[in-house]
């Protein structure tokens, strides 16, 4: 169990923790001095310093940031211009015009931590050309029934004008200015040269979907002030829609922005609550969890088909859907608690997954209860177990590392290149645990693998596609492990007989809940937390604790945090 006052042991324990401690030394300064907003320049020296280079904030934030209060914590950090992720693009288009765009039509996203985000690299020409072509295709499909799209009785220029105004407001996430209205009216007039009214509307749709105001989440308010400044209502609305629905603001959210409601914390809370109750929220929050566990990669995970002939594209898609539907179910129909995600003895299944689980699935899919001893929430679902495995065999390393990364925010470096040939080949008549014994026997490996392998071995009850097994090659599976905390990073060290026992403990771990909150911060802000964010993080942790781990309360807390609602311009 880590504590705020650390021992010498901790200081030399690892690079990561040392960095965290250095950050800790500055933390008090950050929360007391800064951030009154009186003299932002005075705190530039802490701006951009990573708060948690690796690991959860844990006690540092809980204990040191006590001076945070509403009046003194208007913190903000420069947020680079964010281009839509593939998911945001697809879901925005779906919400705007009801057209499904295949994800593979867009280029891969960049990353921030475990999450997709396009905040660093510039867009490629291939993608700009892809945006153009995809927009033309969407416009063609969306205007098949043009009167349904525009909603006005007459197919004339008046109708086009009102369509440009209302549709533009949705696409741009703000009302159009007069010159923009005129410019798109001119585009409409070019478009009527082909198929008249429909052609005009089609071209307007195609044009707006190529606009930087659609493709980027533009935030101009921070450029208007010297220090931290509250984002305008439309900018907050765009962040909120992205966070909770992975999409673009709906009309009600834009109305709230226009009325000034989103200028207050109460107004943001009200809209966050409204959005959290929508079906899109379940799906979008499900997607957070599939990225968090990298289950998102299951559709591109290959298996040796001679050993696992059931590993079809259909099954892979069902495995991704399982994780996202399960989260949506817990949030919408269940108790909404983080601990349930880790310990639920049920899941939400597509019939395609029935053979893997060995259960009967209702036609069309749905909730299925599972044996308590066999399954325990997200980490025992097909997606995690299969992504974190090899093609032919399990991978205690990937599973253990995945658990530590996602749940404890511990990022262990890649193995030294000289020792790269570490993954043992399949050798018959040996268990995976025996094959990996070299890790703890070899001192060069043991330093990291004494941490990684035990939380991986505990998953040995599941094969490379996630089927429960009690034996491997005729030898009973030994899932008993000892989790160690040699670098003072976690609070769930100890002996565990099986994965359920571990996950039930982990669900109550402060290390884990703090890490989980930090993961939400990364996802919501599309950046790493820095010192200035200490007070925002503290509030998130307090809200999460206060609601006994309700995910909705954590999401609402990040949405109402200063880090989320305020911005600051880039240091020039």
């Amino acid at each position, binding site marked *: 169990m880590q504590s705020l006052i650390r021992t010498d042991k901790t200081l030399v324990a690892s690079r990561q923790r040392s960095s965290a401690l250095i950050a800790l030394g500055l933390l008090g300064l950050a929360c007391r001095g800064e951030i009154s907003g009186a003299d932002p320049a005075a705190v530039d020296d802490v701006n951009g310093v990573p708060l948690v280079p690796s690991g959860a904030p844990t006690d540092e934030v809980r204990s040191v940031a006590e001076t945070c209060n509403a009046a003194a914590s208007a913190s903000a950090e420069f947020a680079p211009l964010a281009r839509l992720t593939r998911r945001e693009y697809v879901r925005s288009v779906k919400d705007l015009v009801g057209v499904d765009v295949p994800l593979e039509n867009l280029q891969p996203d960049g990353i921030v931590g475990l999450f997709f985000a396009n905040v660093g690299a510039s867009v490629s020409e291939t993608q*700009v050309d892809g945006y153009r072509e995809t927009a033309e295709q969407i416009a063609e499909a969306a205007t098949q029934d043009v009167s349904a799209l525009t909603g006005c009785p007459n197919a004339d220029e008046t109708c086009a004008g009102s369509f440009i105004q209302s549709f533009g407001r949705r696409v741009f996430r703000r009302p159009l200015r007069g010159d923009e209205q005129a410019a798109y009216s001119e585009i409409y007039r070019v478009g009527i040269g082909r198929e008249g009214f429909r052609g005009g509307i089609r071209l307007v749709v195609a044009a707006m979907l190529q606009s930087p105001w659609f493709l980027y989440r533009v935030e101009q308010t921070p450029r208007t002030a010297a220090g931290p400044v509250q984002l305008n209502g439309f900018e907050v609305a765009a962040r909120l829609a992205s966070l909770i629905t992975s999409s673009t603001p709906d009309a009600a959210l834009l109305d709230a922005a226009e009325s000034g409601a989103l200028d207050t914390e109460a107004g943001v809370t009200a809209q966050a609550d409204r959005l959290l109750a929508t079906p899109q929220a379940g799906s979008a929050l499900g997607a957070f969890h599939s990225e968090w566990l990298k289950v998102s990669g299951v559709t591109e995970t290959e298996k040796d088909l001679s050993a696992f002939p059931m590993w079809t594209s259909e099954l892979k898609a069902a495995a991704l859907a399982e994780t996202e539907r399960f989260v949506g179910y817990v949030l919408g129909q269940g108790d909404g608690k983080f601990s349930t995600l880790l310990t639920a003895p049920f899941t939400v299944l597509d019939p395609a997954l029935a053979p893997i689980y060995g259960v009967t699935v209702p036609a069309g899919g749905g909730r299925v209860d599972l044996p308590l001893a066999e399954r325990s929430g997200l980490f025992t679902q097909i997606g995690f177990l299969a992504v974190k495995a090899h093609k032919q065999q399990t991978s205690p390393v990937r599973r253990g590392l995945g658990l530590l990364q996602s749940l404890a925010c511990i990022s262990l470096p890649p193995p030294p290149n000289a020792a790269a040939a570490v993954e043992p080949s399949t050798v018959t008549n040996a268990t995976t645990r025996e094959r990996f014994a070299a890790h703890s026997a070899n001192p060069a490996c043991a330093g990291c693998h004494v941490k990684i392998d035990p939380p991986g071995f505990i998953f040995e009850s599941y094969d490379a596609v996630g089927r429960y097994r009690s034996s491997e090659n005729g030898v009973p599976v030994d899932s008993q492990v000892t989790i160690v905390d040699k670098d003072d990073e976690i609070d769930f060290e100890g002996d565990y007989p099986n994965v359920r026992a571990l996950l039930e403990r982990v669900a109550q771990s402060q290390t884990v809940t703090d890490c989980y909150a930090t993961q939400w911060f990364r996802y919501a802000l599309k950046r790493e937390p820095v010192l200035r964010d200490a007070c925002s993080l503290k509030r998130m942790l307090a809200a999460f604790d206060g609601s006994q781990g309700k995910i909705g309360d954590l999401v609402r807390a990040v949405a109402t945090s200063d880090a989320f609602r305020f911005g600051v311009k*880039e240091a020039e």
Partner: protein
Amino acid sequence: MRQALHRSSQARFRVKRRALLAALGASSLGGFLPRLGIAQAATPIKRLVLVFQPNGVIMDTWRPPSGTPAGAPIGQLSRTLAAFEPVKSKIAVITGLDQRSYGADNHQQGMGGLWTGSRMGPESELSKPAPENGALADGMSIDQAVAQANVGKTRFDSLQFQVDRLTTGGLGPGWMTGIYSGPSQPILGENNPYEMFDRIFEGVGSVGVGMSDQGAQLRAERKSVLDRVATELTALTGTLGATDRLKLDQHLTHVRSIERRLVDGSVMGASCEPTSLDAALADEKEPLDNDNYPAMVRLHTDIAMLALRCDLTRILSLQFSFSVSGINFKWVESGSSGGGRDHHEHSHDWDTVEASTTHLSDIDRWYADQVAYLAQSLDAVQDGEATLLDNTCIVWGNEIARGGHTLDDMPFLVAGGAAHGMPQGKVFDFQGTDTLHNRLLVSLGRGMGLELDRFGTGDESSGGLPGFV
């Protein structure tokens, strides 16, 4: 109104560029006479092609038979490189170059450093495991340096072909591409050859609608849209800080380039008639299916060559898979003994399991065959007084040296490039000389007309590769 926008449409569609072209009344792609032509010029037009293969090679079967001093004429080709026999007099086989490691995973450093000669960073990312490791190369790749010095000379300043990649989060972009337009600015290529063909050739010859009667309206529509996008980008740029300005400037550059291609009256290369691939394009296959990998590699290669022959670009990269590639090479000679394991899994047993050594060597030879096919095909095309191969410098590299995942003694092969001053029919072994591969990058740049003394972050010594330009 709002109901309309919220309508629950069942209208699913899969974007099909070819379908769009047909719908707009374009001619089908079939039935044209081949009429390939290359602009004749007083001095030859020089091209650069970067080819990437992942996971290292088995050096024992890749390296030319030993005992040849640097710069010696090629004698017998190695087992792996046997397919280069017909163009043996036009290649340079290079071993013994090192790539500098900066603390990154070698797959990752090799992927980002191969064509940039630059370190991966930032430091804070390097210590993270793969799925959340966002490290990128700290410099541009040599092809982009050349492209940026030759803007607007052809329809595309450069093209990136990429066969196979992950998109759903297994690895960050730093593991997926070796091409960079600047520090931390990776360029991911197009991995769908059908999309790539249409993108390159729309409006060329009889392909697409660009030149048809319908095309006039379509060009007017696209002009109005792209002009508007450009106006908005320009206006926005002024309201943002330096980091964001760079992004929008890049975006604007791309919009202008697309506008030149799709809207401007004279399409560069438009007289070319690219019909030779009609059959392969009509037989559409799923690009990411493992079993289609050979067909995709061939189709991407053929499209790339067609783009060169039509002079639509002079700089391109052919990236065959990516670092840590998981292709299962069932189709090579030892494929059935692969035991269901993929390229990378075998590569870790490169020196310990004999069956893996053999299989990996077969994989290397398969890749060599693809590069040799490219070289031979270009050599069959007359280009002024010489062949297209003579005027094209093909460089074939790997992100690591061999299964042991080291970055020293990296395998390189240069094919063609007589016009660039590249050695022809020679063998070079730089082992023991501490020569970094950055100097090869310098030679590539010089061959394409850049005045370079050094390239990337990795080379304190200056100059091109000894024996090269």
